[in-house]
């Protein structure tokens, strides 16, 4: 199942949007944090986990999803949110802690919730696994269309929640897909020192379900494998585990000095940056002209600029609104 031209255009534009977004956030995040880096300061306080480099997984998977489909994302959620179609303005305002944010500033960057496109995320490793199973169960019980995708990092596959949820999804044959973004690191801990198997996709055997490995951080390959898994889920054939090789081009969070990386690793990753690579291939295969791709990039830039502007210009929440929305 190869992506159509339209899909490829969407994928490219979305990857670029995500990258420009992270670059913009990165810059703004540092406002007020120099010369002394203090997380509490600046227009975007708190932790910040950028997704640079991991865009192919998000777009390759979400290209198959509709707003009704469910995504549970991670502590590193921007690329996933953007690919799922979360409202960029309100998402940005949330990251800035503004009243116009998705949840009026109560959530922040690790807690982006958009009911319109069934998107949720969380700051606890593997916490999205259970809710994805439940979303899939809900659709199956209600006879309503929709699959649920849980994105997790490769380190999250060592959490108990991963195991329990995969087993439950398999026992109940639910339309659920777990996508592991394998960027080889959990903060400073290398996968090979934390994970007893070379590839997490083999863990599908523990649940009697298909497991796929996608190498190379390649949007085409991810699209293909995800398409199969999602079609399978829609057809009522149960869950799938997908492990996708990807790269984290940034630190774990902003402020991370990345001393744990072997020398040269960063450089090598940048040489394999998936965005220029995709552009090159789209041009080489004649899918899009350079001008068309420039156009897509301009669209991406405009969307990001508008979202940042929206967030900057929005008002702070009322402090006392902290006490509201605890209960429905």
């Amino acid at each position, binding site marked *: 199942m190869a992506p159509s031209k339209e899909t490829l255009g969407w994928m490219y534009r979305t990857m670029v949007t995500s990258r420009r977004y992270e670059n913009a956030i990165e810059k703004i995040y540092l406002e007020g944090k120099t010369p002394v880096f203090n997380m509490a300061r600046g227009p975007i306080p708190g932790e910040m986990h950028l997704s640079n480099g991991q865009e192919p997984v998000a777009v390759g998977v979400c290209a198959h999803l509709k707003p009704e489909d*469910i995504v*549970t994302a991670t502590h590193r959620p921007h690329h996933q949110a953007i690919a799922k179609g979360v409202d960029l303005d309100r998402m940005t305002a949330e990251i800035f802690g503004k009243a116009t*944010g*998705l*949840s*009026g500033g*109560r*959530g922040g960057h690790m*807690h982006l*919730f*958009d*009911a319109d496109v*069934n998107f*949720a995320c*969380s700051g*606890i490793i593997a*916490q999205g*696994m*259970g*809710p*994805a*199973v*439940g*979303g*899939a*169960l*809900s*659709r199956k*019980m*209600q006879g309503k269309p929709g699959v*649920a995708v849980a994105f997790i990092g490769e380190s999250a596959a060592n959490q*108990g*929640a991963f195991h*329990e*949820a995969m*087993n*439950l999804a398999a*026992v*109940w044959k639910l339309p659920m897909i777990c996508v592991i973004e394998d960027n080889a690191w959990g903060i400073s801990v290398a996968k090979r020192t934390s994970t007893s198997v070379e590839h997490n996709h083999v863990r599908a055997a523990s649940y009697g379900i298909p497991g796929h490995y996608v190498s190379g951080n390649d949007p085409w390959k991810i699209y293909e494998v995800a398409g199969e898994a999602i079609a399978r889920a829609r057809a009522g054939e149960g869950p799938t585990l997908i492990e996708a090789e990807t790269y984290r081009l940034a630190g774990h969070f902003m402020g991370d000095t990345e001393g744990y990386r072997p020398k040269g690793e960063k450089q090598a990753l940048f040489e394999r940056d998936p965005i220029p690579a995709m552009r090159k291939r789209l041009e080489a295969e004649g899918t899009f002209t350079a001008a068309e791709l420039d156009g897509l990039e301009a669209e991406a830039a405009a969307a990001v600029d508008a979202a940042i502007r929206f967030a900057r210009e929005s008002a702070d929440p009322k402090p006392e609104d902290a006490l*509201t*929305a*605890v*209960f*429905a």
Partner: protein
Amino acid sequence: MENERKLTIARAMAEAVAQEMRVDPSVFVMGEDIAELGGVYGNTRGLLDEFGKDRIRDTPISETAFIGAAVGAAQDGMRPVVELMFVDFFGVCFDAIYNLMAKNIYFSGGNFKVPMVLMTSTGGGYSDGGQHSQCVYGTFAHLPGMKVVCPSNAYDAKGLMTAAIRDDSPVIYMFHKGLQGMGWLGTEPGANVHVPEEAYEVEIGKAAIVREGGDVTIVSLAQGVHHALKAAKTLEADGISAEVVDLRSLVPLDRETVLKSVAKTGRLIVVDEDYHSYGVTGEIIATVAEHDLAALKAPPRRIAFPDVPIPFARVMEQYCLPNPDKIVAAAREICPAGAPAA
């Protein structure tokens, strides 16, 4: 009483769930041994037969997964009623409870609702050892985002369950094993009361004065309420008139009812089967001290489980548990000797 329809708490709970399931297809039940077996404590008995396997689901022993799944289903329009067999097991799945279920409404600014009920059994007294006898009421009540109810009788049990299922927020429904009316766990006859056949709600967050009195207020919940009522009877013979407040709900906490009662009696005893420190008893006493210090004519007292793991041996466990005698002794200490009743 004519037309009296005494039910056990177990039956009252099952009835409430069944009635809601009949009218609302989004309600379903998940948990360990809740289908074929009808729940270890009988509170899902009969549901499998009426509603079938799709809506009454036995789960693997994977509390993190199925409670997390309940949250996902609730956010997607379902109304799961989930069972954590013993509250003592909360440690294997508390993230899904306190950090997920309890917070997603807030994190979403109210854009997601999380209408689910987590029912779980509490309490000891039958020598089940330190991992099967706890209450941990204070633990659940301390963390924001979840309502917490603890019925002491079948009428409240049904009404609170109905209210909990209809609530768009997550509700922890804690039922005490000693009150379930399962003979094999002992039976507290006072818990089996008249239960109307039709569905009704008991408002979550309202305490009840279950006995009026003028000399001392005894605040408690779940099984402690029955201890308090027994103590009150004994005290009556001493000429001490005890008012008994059944909290029914820990979150929201009905501070007003407590304050009003203490304003009247001037004396306070709090009875809780949960651990002594940093829990329910401290919260109730602090509430009175900070809001109505002057009302207190005597130091408030608490009767709770000491800060030790729950021992197995009967003599040790019984030594630690609250009981009517301990309440009577405390009341006698803080109340001026009244004229013994004739």
